[in-house]
């Protein structure tokens, strides 16, 4: 089953990252690398998102398409990255999510992905 894991950063976690030395950042990235090696066969894709300030919003309305800068400033928690996992069970997805190096500083959401298999022919 596929699960999408969403990592929400907050002002404190973003400030913590910004305040790290280059070595600390490099070590942080190495921690992610090690984590990914352990997830072979279960991690389909994962990406780190650019700064929230670079967000563009797209509005499609009857009077045309317009884009505006950035998310709403008052929203403190911003999507910082995501994982798409393929694992046996929700329990396993939660276990992986809890081991994301950033988890102690962030809010993590795990959401099941809809699939195309399903049995509707079960004796009813």
């Amino acid at each position: 089953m596929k699960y999408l894991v969403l990592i929400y950063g907050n002002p404190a976690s973003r400030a913590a990252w910004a305040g790290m030395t280059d070595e600390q950042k490099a070590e942080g990235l190495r921690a992610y690398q090690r984590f990914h090696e352990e997830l072979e066969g279960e991690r389909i894709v994962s990406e780190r998102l650019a700064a929230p300030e670079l967000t563009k919003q797209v509005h499609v309305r009857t009077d045309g398409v317009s884009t505006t800068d950035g998310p709403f400033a008052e929203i403190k928690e911003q999507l910082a990255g995501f994982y798409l996992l393929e694992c046996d069970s929700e329990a396993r997805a939660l276990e992986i999510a809890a081991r994301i190096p950033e988890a102690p500083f962030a809010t993590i959401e795990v959401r099941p992905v809809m699939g195309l298999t399903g049995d509707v022919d079960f004796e009813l």
Partner: protein
Amino acid sequence: MIDSLLRDLIPQVLTALVRRYGDFGKCEDAVQEALLAAAVQWPKDGVPDNPKAWLITTASRRRIEMWRNEAARIRREETVAALEPPSFELVPQQDDTLTLLLLCCHPALTRPSQVALTLRAVGGLTTAEIARAYLVPEPTIGQRISRAKHKLRGAEFALPPQDELPERVAAVLQVLYLVFTEGHTASSGDAVNRVELTAEAIRLARQLRALLPADGEVAGLLALMLLTDARRPARTGADGIPVPLAEQDRALWDASAIAEGSALIEHALATTPVGPYQLQAAIAAVHDEAPTADATDWPQILVLYDLLQQIAPGPMVTLNRLVALASVEGPALALSELDGTDVDHYRADVVRAHLLELSGDPRGAHDCYVRAAQRTLSLPEREYFESRALRVMSEKP
């Protein structure tokens, strides 16, 4: 034609190599390369007189080349010089495919790895085909297979001791059943070139049955697959909407598959100790042998579910038994038993919806179908439950 020939030969070629050289992972790589060579050369130059020998020779050469490359690094040419491709007289033993199946379903591997490795090493599917069948990216499957092979380094290529055999065979049965259900429940038409996993599972189950003809559960699994797959032509309507069992056009069912499956399960039940796959196959046989839905022998199905509940209890068995109970004793008793279970699964909502429908409560049934539609992780199921919800409200009492 060449494809199916190649796929039948794969386990034999692979086991021949593993027996001679050891190291399952490297041999598997070598066989893959030999297959690639065959896929390129045979259509052009024709199939060789002895295709198996050709493949074994080609794979052996490749395997030795790998060795030479390693040996060059560790300076052991003198041992390699003695290695020559084997003669064509190499006849694998009967047990080889079974040994290979058991190795692919080794307890050290995770279930998804067992599935991927079995499909590739025994089924002869490419990594790309397996990835397409499971709708995951190719690298995900590739990593699964290479990790599994890495884990199996040092695993002995031999049949496990007699006392471990039943447990190990049970793992193979579970893997084949998983492959089958994945194929059986996949919604069709949205994935071009998807491998027919149901056909693949049946093919492998037939192989296993030939290797273990006296095993009742192997026979039961093959029968269950045949009896379930027989209904496939009737499972979806012209518009792609699933058709429930009770409403299927039974003229579309595959009579020869039903005959084969029924004969298999009757023989197994009469001659071997009963097990969960046999019981499930027996239930499928009772459904398949009924000329109309109304003629279904529900009391017999209920007896079989009672047995299944005793030897292999589980939430799905509980729920399916309640459907049978409702058909025998009426929905009220089944509903009160459902209230007494603690099954918290969307399938429980579906069964409740069905029971409420039977007891003349369309509003309650509607709400349960809607709840099931919200809880399922399957798109085809969600659409189906939503359509049932609408239908139950529009039907005249």
